[in-house]
């Protein structure tokens, strides 16, 4: 599988990255090299094999982990001190919608 210039631009926009015209060919070349490298996986017979999301074996009781539930700890005052631009608990960002006036 090889990817063309338009696909690289599309991936970049999904990834929120921005390559110049000068940098795009190298990224395209690198991605194609790596995709060619990973083609080796097509050799493997994966019939009836279950995907493994992470290596902890949930069937072993003593290897159990807690449920992935967030707590409701509120540290916003502490963390907002790190923000580049804030105003009264709001993070300031530029326009999301285009100005049509």
């Amino acid at each position: 599988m090889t990817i063309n210039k338009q696909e690289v631009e599309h991936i970049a926009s999904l990834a929120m990255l921005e390559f110049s015209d000068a940098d795009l060919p190298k990224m395209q070349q690198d991605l194609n090299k790596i995709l060619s490298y990973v083609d080796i996986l097509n050799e493997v017979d994966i019939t009836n094999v279950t995907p493994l999301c992470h290596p902890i074996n949930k069937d072993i009781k003593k290897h159990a982990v807690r449920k992935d539930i967030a707590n409701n700890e509120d540290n916003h005052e502490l963390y907002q001190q790190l923000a580049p631009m804030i105003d009264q608990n709001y993070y300031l960002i530029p326009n999301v919608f285009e100005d049509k006036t």
Partner: protein
Amino acid sequence: MENKTLLELSQALHNKSISSVELTQLFLQRINKYDKQLNSFITLCETTAMQQAKLADSKLHSNQAGILTGIPLAHKDVFCTENIKTSCASKMLDNFISPYNAHIVDQFNHAQMIMLGKTNMDQFAMGSSNENSYYGAVQNPWDISKVPGGSSGGSACAVAARLIPAATGSDTGGSIRQPASFCGICGIKPTYGRVSRWGMVAFASSFDQAGAFAKSAEDLCLLLQTMAGHDAKDSTSVACEVENYQQNLNQRLDGISIGIPKEYFINELDADIADSVMQSAYILEKQGATLKEISLPHTKYASACYYILSTAECSSNLARYDGVRYGYRCSNPKNIHDLYKRSRHEAFGDEVKRRIMLGTYILSAGYYDAYYIKAQKIRNLIQQDFINAFQDVSLILSPTTPTSAFELHTKEQDPIAMYMSDIFTISANLAGIPAASFPIGFQNNLPIGAQLMAPAFQEKIILQAMHNYQKATDWHNKTPSLEECSK
């Protein structure tokens, strides 16, 4: 003094032949003398370190000290440290002062170790050479024209150069073991879930694991004993009991079988390294172990599998860096997309962007099954290879890397050449099993290492085998001359 083990330093502190303040000053002097050249530290914490050392001395004088009290330590700059810059060696976090400590930082603070600073690394833990740092490359203390390995290159270099007696690292695909091998020291990646990932900046969440570097198996025991254990803040932290890692350390290896996987002895493996690994196997055999050739049939697919899954996970994990809540923000963004794109593009290094792009492609509509799901299934087969092998053997011995440390600035532009450096370490991350590297000799005056792997949560047996090897050999006591480093 800088060549003493953690146990010897502990004894010296407890019998008052040196104070923690003196010991801390000694290592700070060494860092000031050699690190301009080596570049293993990003941040030095001299003031807080001296405060911690004074406190440690008062604990030592009032018999309230533990075994590691007063001994200096460095943390890889991937671990959050409260009120101290935590950069992940990236422009993206160059301005980030962490508001909290990683769990392992708290654990070592509780053990009263002295934090001297944060070590250099490949950006966001992505790399195998420590050339991908915003703060410049780290050099190998054995030969400054060579890489120290990565991504924990700073920690490995600092311990090898005796700038610090112990350091933490993180290992996602070999980032502790490969630099340990290149720098001639010991490094351990525990079982996935053994050590908390809370406060360790995420790269690939189903692979990342915190671990440590030291000069010997005995020293690694003390560090792992401090780091291991359940942490409720990390939802992937396993609540199984932490063993006493020192308990069997001095027992011979009778009854222990060591498998040598034939798939690791490939053409790409340097012949000298292959010989040295076999010599180390025979030494372990003399300590009572039995050797057996085994097969891990899916080994050759491990690297490709890793680069699909880890890049997919990293593209998701690094989506949080958006210039809004913390970290780098581009100047004068025109709109929200400009803010996101320019902040990320201006602050991430090339390797980070490459992996985000690959991961994004892999997870995108139309390619998800062809790559991501397929790789997850192959990950299952790779894990099963180890489960099957460990029915027959207690440990697996292999080379850590196919070559010794390579020249600086020779592989940066060729990602595949760089990825080949990790082909022997990656499988342990895919399977989630513990693995460690230890020095077994030299090739052209550069260190080489062997790797021991064990079933999940069997770190104790790795350390026992490593210690037995180190009782019979002297490689772990060799130190670089550092002649070229103090100019």
